[in-house]
């Protein structure tokens, strides 16, 4: 048997292959204005159907007892044929001599708006279909508004069913003038208006004699003029961080260059927080040689010169062209979910790879999508299929851009429960220090509830926890504890260090170093840590705590009250600790000046199953500290079910 296991490069043929890149078109408009018919017609008239497809559909139609229609070509599923309504985004390719297309069959039925948004969000161009007889209907407006929010700028308006209005030019002109006025309010200027008939195939691929008065292009001719959207190449760098991999000793930052470009050696600043480093390398598996630069659209993996605390969600930029940063955004929002979106109920906002709890703090106005006039009164809630201007407040600072500046990082979705419920684009952003503004909004009312551990956690944006750092004197506990506190503090996580030495100056001043006193010392530290964690703090305990039983006791104290507890073993060999001897204690112990010194004259019982073990003699302090910080951030994260329950409560479900 012969297999291509060691593939040799096959010789390329002389045939020049067309690019398989496609222009993505969305076809929208009011229900029954003829979208599916137009699509079927485009397929048929460009000879793009597989052999026998028309015959197959004719037979299927007969089986259903229906007359053949072009619309059936797309309605792949049974019930669609039965109901005569297209239910979902279907993507089907067709070819012309010039290039390839994909039609996204966006449905017009009101129920299925979320599918239309799904399809239209990735389209290069749109055909807005209007029935010449019925003129502008509700969805003709709603869909146009959504196209404007989704940022689609290449639009042709197809005035369909001209056969039903006797091919009269004045009817076409009336529709054109009405719709032009409406679209103008949205900032949409269609490139073409085309009178046509999908059913009869008029003005589809070329000019038809019945509509000879029309001097512009036929539908397909109009489409051929549109461009495939290319990512803009003149925008500043936005590197959206997806994950950090540590498959080996390196920290690899994986993400996508949404805009701009990135070079090895350049300075890169991560937002929010503005942490800066330099790009050390761009990693690429199976590359002949490592790349030195990466361009817009690429999914890349990079390493940094200097280890800084970055995490999923961060946006990397060049030093002088960073995104805005803040807790408040002004946005236009469309809502697709059955359950309405009320004020002051927490939801998850996702922007790029950031995911943050947020709420509506103000609904400036809700627009009637038919008239685009603001609804009367202050609704205080956004219902399904409505669009609104809102102010949103996030629990912690996020990085973002104004949508008209950089759309990739200027738009977001809202997740309630477990599903995407809607999306929005950011209208305003202050590209400077926004802390003053955020401070001014501090007085806005939040739902007041009895203060529980959960509500404290909600308020802090994280839960309280106890990290118990145990290890020999000189193993690195204090250094790591202070480093960790600093990192947590910078991330807005409330934390505090309980240090063994410090406690002995006050709370434990009456205790000595006998086994009994040591136990009591640990018990007091443990109880104090529990109280502070209960209050919502991440408590970093830095104590030698040599005895297993004492540490287990603290674990029990915490776990009894449901406080997350993690034993962190700071592991360094005795000889290393003794060589470090930062406070000269080992020297004194060896000289007999300190009695019962752990490791020398008193035993240290290493943890049997610590939640985290850090070997400080084998890894750099930077890497160890990053591991500890990641661990602490995860430990303090509010678990998902709690958020879900809170959502349920807030929504009054």
């Amino acid at each position, binding site marked *: 048997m012969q297999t291509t296991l060691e593939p040799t490069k096959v010789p390329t043929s002389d045939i020049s292959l067309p690019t398989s890149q496609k222009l993505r078109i969305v076809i929208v408009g009011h229900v029954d204005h003829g979208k599916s018919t137009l699509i079927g017609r485009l397929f048929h008239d460009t000879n793009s159907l597989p052999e026998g497809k028309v015959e197959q559909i004719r037979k299927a139609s007969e089986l259903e007892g229906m007359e053949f229609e072009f619309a059936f070509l797309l309605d792949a599923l049974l019930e669609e044929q039965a109901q005569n309504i297209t239910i979902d985004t279907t993507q089907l390719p067709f070819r012309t001599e010039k290039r390839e297309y994909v039609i996204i069959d966006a449905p017009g039925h009101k129920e299925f708006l979320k599918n239309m948004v799904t399809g239209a969000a990735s389209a290069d161009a749109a055909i807005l279909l209007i029935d010449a007889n019925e003129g502008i209907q509700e969805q003709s407006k709603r869909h146009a508004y959504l196209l404007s929010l989704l940022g689609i700028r290449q639009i042709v308006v197809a005035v369909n069913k001209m056969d039903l209005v006797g091919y009269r030019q004045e009817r076409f002109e009336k529709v054109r003038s009405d719709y032009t006025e409406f679209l103008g309010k949205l900032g949409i200027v269609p490139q073409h208006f085309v009178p046509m008939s999908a059913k009869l195939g008029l003005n589809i691929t070329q000019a038809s004699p019945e509509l000879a008065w029309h001097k512009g292009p036929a539908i397909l001719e109009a489409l051929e003029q549109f461009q495939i959207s290319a990512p803009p190449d003149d925008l500043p760098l936005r590197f959206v961080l997806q994950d950090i991999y540590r498959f080996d000793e390196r920290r690899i930052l994986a993400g996508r260059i949404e805009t701009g470009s990135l070079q090895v050696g350049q300075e890169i600043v991560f937002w929010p927080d503005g942490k800066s480093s330099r790009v050390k390398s761009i990693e*690429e598996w199976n590359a002949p040689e490592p790349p030195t630069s990466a361009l817009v659209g690429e999914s890349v993996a990079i390493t940094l010169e200097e280890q800084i605390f970055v995490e999923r969600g961060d946006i990397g930029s060049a030093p002088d062209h960073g995104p805005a940063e803040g807790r408040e955004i002004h946005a236009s929002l469309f809502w697709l979910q059955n359950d309405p979106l009320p004020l002051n109920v927490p939801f998850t906002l996702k922007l790029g790879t950031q995911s943050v709890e947020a709420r509506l703090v103000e609904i400036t106005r809700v627009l009637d999508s038919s008239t685009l006039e603001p609804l009367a009164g202050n609704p205080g809630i956004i219902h399904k299929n409505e669009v609104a201007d809102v102010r949103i407040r996030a629990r912690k600072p996020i990085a973002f851009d104004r949508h008209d500046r950089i759309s990739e990082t200027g738009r977001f979705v809202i997740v309630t429960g*477990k599903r995407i419920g809607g999306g929005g684009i950011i209208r305003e952003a202050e590209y400077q220090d926004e802390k003053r503004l955020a401070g001014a909004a501090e007085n806005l009312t939040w739902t007041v509830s009895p203060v529980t551990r959960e509500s404290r956690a909600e308020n802090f944006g994280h839960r309280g926890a106890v990290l118990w750092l145990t290890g020999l004197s000189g193993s690195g506990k204090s250094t790591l504890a202070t480093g960790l506190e600093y990192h947590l503090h910078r991330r807005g996580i409330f934390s505090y260090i309980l240090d063994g030495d410090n406690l002995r100056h006050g709370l434990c001043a009456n205790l000595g170093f006998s086994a009994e006193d040591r136990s009591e010392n640990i018990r007091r530290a443990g109880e104090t840590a529990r109280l502070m964690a209960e209050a919502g703090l991440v408590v970093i305990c830095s104590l030698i705590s040599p005895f297993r039983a004492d540490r287990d006791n603290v674990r029990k104290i915490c776990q009894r009250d449901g406080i997350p507890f993690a034993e962190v073993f700071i592991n360094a060999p005795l000889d290393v600790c003794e060589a470090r001897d930062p406070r000269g204690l080992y020297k004194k112990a060896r000289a007999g000046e300190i009695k019962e010194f752990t490791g020398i004259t008193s035993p240290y019982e290493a943890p049997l199953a610590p939640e985290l073990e850090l070997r400080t003699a084998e890894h750099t302090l930077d890497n160890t500290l990053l591991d500890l910080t990641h661990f602490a951030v995860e430990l303090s994260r509010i678990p998902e079910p709690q958020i879900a329950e809170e959502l349920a409560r807030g929504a009054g479900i």
Partner: protein
Amino acid sequence: MDHLDQLEAQSVYILREAYHSFSNLCMPWSMGKDSNVLIWLSKKAFCGKIPYPVLHIDTTYEFPEMLEFREWARKEYDLDLIVKINEDARAGRGSYTQSVGYETHDPVTVTHELKTVALQQVMAERKFDALITGIRRDEDPTRAKERYFSPRNAEFEWDYKDQPPEFWNQFTTAIEPGEHIRVQPLLDWAEVDIWRYIERENIPIPTMYFARPGEDGKKYRFRSLGCWPITKPVESTASNISEIIAELLVTKTSERAGRAQDHHERNAMQKLRAKGFM
């Protein structure tokens, strides 16, 4: 970036989102061309390491050449490979009163029992919360309606009538207990893109895709690979990737025309997929 670069970048982005979002994901792998592209993209996404297990649902009707390829690839790519057979169905024990096979049953039934049910069994055993699949929109109309991240309920059913919206690269990543997500990084790839990418990257694939002489003197190749009793080759002289691509540009036969289970009855594919088939 050319079109293939764009497809690759998007697939890599999706794989990384999946790896971040799910704690216990798995990648079914058929050894077919799309499946091998997925392996390749995984290598690219994770700098040479595939950080999730790869699952082969072995129907016991595999072409020997495919099994040989499986063993080669397991070593070559250092795969954490799970091989799953619905042993009960083949042996006619447990909930089965008789052995299920192509000798005795129709292709839709066999495909359901030996692929979908086997997948359900391994899901129950391993509690995977997401599956990375290699399906593409252009393969079949029912697949055209898919999302990149597509939820399945505990019964494996796909609620295609009420799918969550998906736009701006924001995906459905939260699941209810018992649900899982189908992650479909190749959704936007066309058959010809797969071939162009295999050619560009020099990705090893089974040679059954290339034309070989048949008993009647004509040349045949497999365009899509499945169980041997129900997978027929198509007439073709394409003996290398360039020729396959050239052939695809003029053909009007659908890719899965050689796969009997799709055509056994009207809407067979829809029925299979609604019950959990990929």
